[in-house]
């Protein structure tokens, strides 16, 4: 890639169009959320006190600066609802990610070791559900998990249980829903890492007397670790802020931060606290991502 150079007029225009869009509809709104998070809550529409405008004189700006407050952030930490829902979001996302890894790894391995001409078909079939509606895929699980749903019916018909198990509207249902809907995020990076591995490495290990288990633990798994880390992050991060799955498959006790934020904005009208919670969530999610990116860049530099 060439270094910094002067862009021609046409190039500037080409860059300006997406840049302006992102600035207007992503960066500015995010800054606004950060701004609302330090304003005072008022009963009005919009339900927060304005901060400052450029038309204000210096004294007016000073007055309004005085009105800025970290109250919302304080509320965030003192309100157990927020703290608990952050913790439970992290726990649910972590458990889901772990289960998805356990489901996706053998699946990815089986696809990667399938005959070469079948691989594109298998991976295509595995990713195809991802193209269908997320909402519908979550909805499909309701019919399976309900008390009078198909799983309970099947188990009762087989005589395994005598009364329906409560599965719908539990944290377990939320975890199943998250695993199901985010599985491709986990599957694809692991598959990519496994597919890249040179089969002759395994042959060499076998020639040197390694058992299949040894070959897996000392060769296949370490070489696929990058895919595992990427897949876990790709799944964990959106799962923490998930709204649809806990709302449809969980009960009212299943606290997840995405759901709390939704309720704060639509029903409670406490925008400053909700904004502070959103800012905290972004920071919480971006930190591991930035750390991972930095570690990856360092590794790349080290490899050079």
């Amino acid at each position, binding site marked *: *890639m060439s270094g*910094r*150079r002067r*862009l021609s007029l046409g*190039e500037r225009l*080409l*860059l300006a*169009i*997406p*840049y302006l*869009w*992102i*600035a207007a*509809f*992503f960066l500015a*709104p*995010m800054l*606004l959320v950060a701004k*609302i998070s330090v304003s005072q809550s008022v009963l009005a*529409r*919009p339900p927060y006190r304005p901060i400052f405008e450029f038309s204000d004189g210096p004294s007016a700006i000073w007055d309004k600066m005085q009105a800025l407050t970290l109250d919302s952030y304080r509320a965030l930490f003192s309100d157990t609802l927020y703290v608990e829902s952050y913790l439970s979001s992290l726990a649910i996302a972590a458990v889901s990610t772990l289960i998805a890894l356990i*489901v996706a790894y053998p*699946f990815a*391995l*089986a696809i990667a*070791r399938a005959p070469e001409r079948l691989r594109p078909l298998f991976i*295509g079939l*595995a990713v*195809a*559900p991802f*193209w*269908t*509606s997320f*909402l*519908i*895929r979550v*909805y*499909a*699980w*309701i*019919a*399976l998990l*309900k008390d*009078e*749903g198909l799983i309970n019916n099947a188990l009762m018909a087989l005589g395994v249980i005598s009364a329906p198990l409560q599965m719908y509207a539990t944290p377990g249902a939320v975890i199943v829903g998250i695993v*199901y809907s985010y599985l491709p995020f986990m599957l694809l990076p692991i598959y990519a890492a496994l597919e890249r591995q040179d089969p002759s490495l395994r042959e060499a290990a076998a020639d040197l007397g390694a058992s299949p288990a040894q070959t897996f633990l000392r060769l296949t798994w370490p070489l696929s670790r990058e895919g595992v880390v990427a897949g876990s992050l790709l799944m964990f991060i*959106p799962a923490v*802020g998930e*709204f*649809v799955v806990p*709302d449809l498959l969980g009960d009212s006790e299943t606290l997840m931060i*995405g759901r709390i*934020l*939704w309720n704060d*904005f639509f029903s409670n009208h406490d925008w400053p606290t909700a*904004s502070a919670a*959103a800012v905290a*969530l*972004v920071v919480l*999610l971006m930190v591991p991502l930035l750390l991972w990116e930095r570690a990856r860049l360092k590794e790349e530099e080290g490899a050079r």
Partner: protein
Amino acid sequence: MSAAGAWARGAALSIGFVFLYAPIVILTVMSFNASRLVSVWGGFSTKWYVALLENEQLLHSAKISLAAALVSATIATLLGLFAAIALARFGGFRTRMLFFGALHAPLVLPEVVLGLALLSCFVALGVGRGFVTLVIGHVTLTMCFTTVAILAALRDFDRTLEEAAMDLGATPPEAFVRVALPQIAPAIVTAYLLAFTLSLDDLVIASFATGPGATTLPMRIYSQVRLGVSPQINAVSTLLLALVAVALGLAAAVSWWRAGRNSSVKIATPAPDEAS
């Protein structure tokens, strides 16, 4: 490979595919169930599909969703193409990191956060919410996906072909449009389809960004689903699944046809792993 290994691979594949497809297949079967109950098979019936045709609200929402998906996917693909060209070709322009980060952030940001940011922005500006704000929300959500898809293709593309065209007298924009663009066309189509399905499917951003009169299909489905499983929703879902299945089938057929057409080139230059 040992027989046990082959058996384990077969089992892993079967379990994986059953897990992925069973809920979808069951949903489809249920949409043809004459009975209202999930647990009772009341015979084959298309009555829920007939009922759909009479559900004005749902049909109106379906039209809104399709229109929003068409418009927002078109804008998002164009913006994504521009952004990808800038990121792939312009080198390290100033604030590149900011641009890159802001473009990729919606990929990992919870949709709720992007949604509430857009909502506060529209409220602060005093903009009435409706179809236009819905499209703005969907473009902002999907353009990061289109950028990533097109950027990957542009990076893989062999620039020497473009340089050859310029040696033969083409201007840089001409070389790009006539040499690079046809080569990355499949990625552009993929990007468009991705943006289209994401927009068609989105519930969270739409709930924040849209207003009365522009209620999308997922919002209607969602409010119905909260009341429980309903046969009509099974029917809508099956139609949406069928739509995606047809689109994916077409995409697969096109790529298979392209691969077949290019196979003579492949034989001339075998890939390293094929040669071994």
